[in-house]
């Protein structure tokens, strides 16, 4: 039993690390632009397909393909915000959120139109799971690719932290997230910050979409499947808080894996819904809420 629980904990941590990247993107947009951008699903899908193209069609190594996923999804994020969501923002956050959900569906179907519905895979070697003996408690099986994906997530989180802490663009984003009125009074251009936030956030969504594709396969629904746990992680941690999104992602990852102890695995997505319900009922600002970026 202990071995089983430890296995679930390890799986949950690895899944949480993957989930953290798009969750950071989601919470970044919320912090800077004050609306839940459900179009993240479409951008995660676009990132996954950009990664497949780079890796399979052009033979790029996985690291370079991840960079391509980030850049392509980031650029599409800037374009889609400029052309669609920016025009909706004056109508309020609810209107913009609904528009974003619709935009996500449009992006998903553009991908479906171009690439079809068949799942695609990456050109990566299949590696055998690592086995760790726990003596009488049994053993752990750890997938090397999941560990690599978790490591990539941790690296991208560290780079993002450095970007927000040590660069002028990062500090501008934090200032707007903290106090948009004061940021305007200090001469910061909100449109410029919105473009940078969209590039970073949707780039992270694309990066996360490719990580998930590496773990499973890539199809037009890869983003739609992840958007609920991403939203749940951001709400759980406190919308607008990056440390909160990371904490929320790990908790959702572990919670989803733990749920398989008592539920059929096909019900694991219910964990996200339950988390959202509990947080909004008991602590609407989330675990680490009211801490901008």
């Amino acid at each position, binding site marked *: 039993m202990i071995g089983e629980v430890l296995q679930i904990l390890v799986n949950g941590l690895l899944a949480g690390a993957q989930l953290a990247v798009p969750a950071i993107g989601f919470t970044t947009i919320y912090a800077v632009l004050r609306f839940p951008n459900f179009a993240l699903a479409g951008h995660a899908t676009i990132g996954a397909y950009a990664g497949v193209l780079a890796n399979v069609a052009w033979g790029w190594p996985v690291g370079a393909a991840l960079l391509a996923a980030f850049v392509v999804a980031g650029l599409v994020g800037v374009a889609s915000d400029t052309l669609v969501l920016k025009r909706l923002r004056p109508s309020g956050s609810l209107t913009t959120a609904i528009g974003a959900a619709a935009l996500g569906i449009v992006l998903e179907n553009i991908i479906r139109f171009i690439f079809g519905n068949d799942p695609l895979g990456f050109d990566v070697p299949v590696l055998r799971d690592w086995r760790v003996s726990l003596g009488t408690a049994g053993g752990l099986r750890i997938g090397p690719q999941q560990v690599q994906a978790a490591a990539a997530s941790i690296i991208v989180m560290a780079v993002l932290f450095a970007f927000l802490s040590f660069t*002028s663009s990062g*500090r*501008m984003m*934090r*200032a707007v997230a*903290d*106090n948009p*009125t*004061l*940021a*305007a*009074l*200090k*001469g*910061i*251009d909100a449109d410029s910050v919105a473009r940078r936030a969209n590039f970073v956030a949707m780039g992270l969504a694309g990066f996360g979409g490719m990580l998930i594709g590496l773990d499973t396969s890539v199809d037009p629904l890869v983003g739609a499947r992840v958007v609920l746990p991403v939203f749940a992680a951001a709400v759980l941690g406190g919308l607008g808080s990056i440390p909160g999104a990371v904490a929320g992602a790990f908790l959702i990852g572990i919670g989803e894996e733990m749920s398989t102890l008592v539920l059929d695995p096909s019900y694991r997505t219910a964990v996200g819904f339950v988390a959202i319900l509990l947080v909004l009922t008991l602590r609407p600002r989330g675990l680490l809420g009211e*801490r*901008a*970026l």
Partner: protein
Amino acid sequence: MTVLLDISGVVAGYGAADEILKGVDLQVAEGELLAIIGPNGAGKSTLLKAVAGLLRLKSGGMRFEGEAIDTLPPRERARRGVALVLQEANVFPTMTVWENLEIGGFIERRGIRGRIDGLLARFPMLAEKRRHAARTLSGGQRQILAMAMALMVQPKLLLLDEPSAGLSPKAAEALFDSIAAIHAEGTTIAMVEQNALEALAIADRAAVLVDGRTALVGDAKTLAADPNVRRMFLGG
């Protein structure tokens, strides 16, 4: 006197049907400290926000250094030298004191380190707390930080909205000393203040706003000595 800011017939409010300012006429001369006083709800803070660009005018106009600024966004007014220190939410709470000062100097990034060092030398409390998040500062310390952020760009016109609100008498006294020192260095200041007697004590001129209109404008010492003004606006 050289007019730095010329406000004429300004009508503005927070909503379509809402008019807080109902026709304000006011001039701020270069180099002066103008105190703006009046009863609660007279529109004093609203006037400063309108000057900084946070509110759109319904009618009237504003000229800064002779140029119309009433259609410019806040960042353009900031670039021209207008700096507003808000009464509340006037710092970036999760950012450190140093980062707040850096953002304060955002529009003029050349020589920013030297200017931060200068302000840290001027306000030693900020130097001690430079690595602390602004949300950990006391009310008086936040006001000093907010003013220092405004000074990062060496503004031509410093707008102060109720700088002593919520401060202890000792902290308020220290703050007024700092404001007087900043003014003595040549910075033009327009200050809204509930603590009218203290404001008039350091001001050159004063304007009294009543119900969104300019009721009186004159020499600060003369207004402070006027029995009618004292009875109506200064608590006897």
